[in-house]
């Protein structure tokens, strides 16, 4: 069973060159990924195919969440394909802090599309990479919880829980 992808997309009122720069440059990343504490954002980037990005962003509780990315395809202002993992402070791949059977590696594809009039669509698509059956099931459960209309139906269950 190949799990269905998880996709998040957004249309930004900004030209594609700016969206690309802001999304891929660590100096910008610090400002939007860690808006309350940009100085706390740590980044070691080697932005080329085969290169890696080891980063750490402070969470709401102050604890730093580390991640690592390995770039597989870079087409400026068009597409970035990378393998994404949670990591420790030294850049070693680590399990998801809340769900240990979350896939260790996620293949992430970001597509950038110029919609004209200074607007840009960015779509991020995730699928498990080199995943075990258990990891795929964990991913599929989370995907189903967020997409496919089930997130709305989930409201029914929340309403039920609220009434207990």
């Amino acid at each position, binding site marked *: 069973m190949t799990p269905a992808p998880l996709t998040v997309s*957004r249309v930004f*009122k900004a030209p594609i060159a700016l969206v690309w720069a*802001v999304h891929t440059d660590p100096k910008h990343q610090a400002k939007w990924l860690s808006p309350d504490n940009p100085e706390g954002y740590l980044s070691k980037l080697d932005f080329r195919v085969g290169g890696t990005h080891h980063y750490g962003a402070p969470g709401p509780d102050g604890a730093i969440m580390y991640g690592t990315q390995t770039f597989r395809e870079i087409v400026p202002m068009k597409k970035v394909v990378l393998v994404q993992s949670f990591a420790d402070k030294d850049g070693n791949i680590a399990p998801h802090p809340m769900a240990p059977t979350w896939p260790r590696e996620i293949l992430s594809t970001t597509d950038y599309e110029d919609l004209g009039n200074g607007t840009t669509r960015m779509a991020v698509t995730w699928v498990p990479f080199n995943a075990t059956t258990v990891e795929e099931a*964990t991913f599929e*459960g989370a995907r189903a919880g967020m997409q496919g209309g089930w997130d709305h139906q989930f409201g029914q*269950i929340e*309403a039920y*829980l609220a009434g207990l």
Partner: protein
Amino acid sequence: MTDQLSLTLAALADPTRRAMLLRLAAGTATVNELGAPFTLSQPAISKHIKVLERAGLISRGRLAQTRPCRLEPGKLLELNDFMDHFRVVTEQQMDQLETYLSELQAKGTEK
């Protein structure tokens, strides 16, 4: 390594089991009632119910022979926390990026 959250997520990976949970959000149901909407064999229905029960998402009553199924809130609440966390790392990052882009552009026009 099967922690509780992973069991819960794996149980949700199947559309039949998700439909069963939604049915139970409307109230308790017997195994027959839960299986009625599906063209599945009785053993297949039982297996789905066992997975939900093992994941702690439902419990079985001791009442009579029907042993009605009911939704168990605890695991669903834990799952909700995970989903919230998930939305934070996806949608909220998009929000932050959007805010930053509009701030940058506002600064650009001030100059």
